[in-house]
């Protein structure tokens, strides 16, 4: 999807160049295993501690599940960000062309769910990651950009 490349460019412009990018289509729960393996594959390259890997994987799975539940189809982009300051991070971008989020403030509140789930995915992902940006347009879709800085 050309839009994903543009997205990587946007991230690169704001945080630093993205390397080792992996794109994972997300449609059903079987795809969540691919997300986990994708992070597992990048983890050694960054020297992630077990705790960091668990935190990132948990956040990524929450975002991927949101896509499955709310949008039906979307993508996760995983990669390694090299910040100009010298830091490195693991990037997780979740993007879909689903219904979008009408009230972002509400969606970012713990316990709010439009489908009877725990409502922790978005605020939880924000707590687990260091960088968390979300953009959503009703009727167009949602994009979430997260980075966990390592070291």
């Amino acid at each position, binding site marked *: 999807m050309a839009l994903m490349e543009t997205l990587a460019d946007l991230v690169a412009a704001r945080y630093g160049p993205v390397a080792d990018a992996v794109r994972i289509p997300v449609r059903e*729960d*079987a795809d969540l*295993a691919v997300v*986990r393996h994708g992070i597992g594959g990048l983890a050694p390259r960054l020297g992630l501690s*077990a*705790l960091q*890997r*668990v*935190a990132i*994987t*948990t*956040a990524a*799975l*929450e975002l991927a*599940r949101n896509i499955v539940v709310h949008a039906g189809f979307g993508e996760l982009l995983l990669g390694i960000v090299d910040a100009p300051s010298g830091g490195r991070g693991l990037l997780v971008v979740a993007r879909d062309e689903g219904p979008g989020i009408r009230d972002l403030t509400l969606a970012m509140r*713990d316990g709010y769910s439009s489908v009877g*789930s*725990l409502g*922790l*995915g978005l*605020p*939880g*992902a924000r*707590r*687990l990651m260091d960088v968390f940006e979300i953009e959503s347009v009703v009727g167009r879709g949602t994009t979430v950009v997260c980075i966990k800085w390592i070291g």
Partner: protein
Amino acid sequence: MPTQTPILKQGDYLIVSLQDAVSDTDLAALWRTLVERVGQQRIRGVVIDVSALDVIDSFACRTLTQVAQALGLRGAEAIIVGIQPDVAFSMVQLGLSVRDVRTMLDPEEAVEYLDRVTRHGPHAGRA
């Protein structure tokens, strides 16, 4: 490829060892099996060992608490054991809790507890 989740029967208890990378659909089938077996075999306690899970997200957490509730309705106490340290930390950061479901360190601790509360087994009569 369906993953076989080991279920061990120990006296009146079942010990279920969740394997890593169990799919949602396999889990749903497993829960149904457990809830049925409680009735078929008069199971008093179900120990759910999650030590092989390297991630517990909100879906997994909600599923575990719902299964514990369903088993409770059938007269069996469910105890979750083996939440790994990093997983516990991430769960807290995510904001998850398994409220109302007993958690313990390992299956041995859970069986000892179940013996005490169900007054069976070698620990019956001890405080």
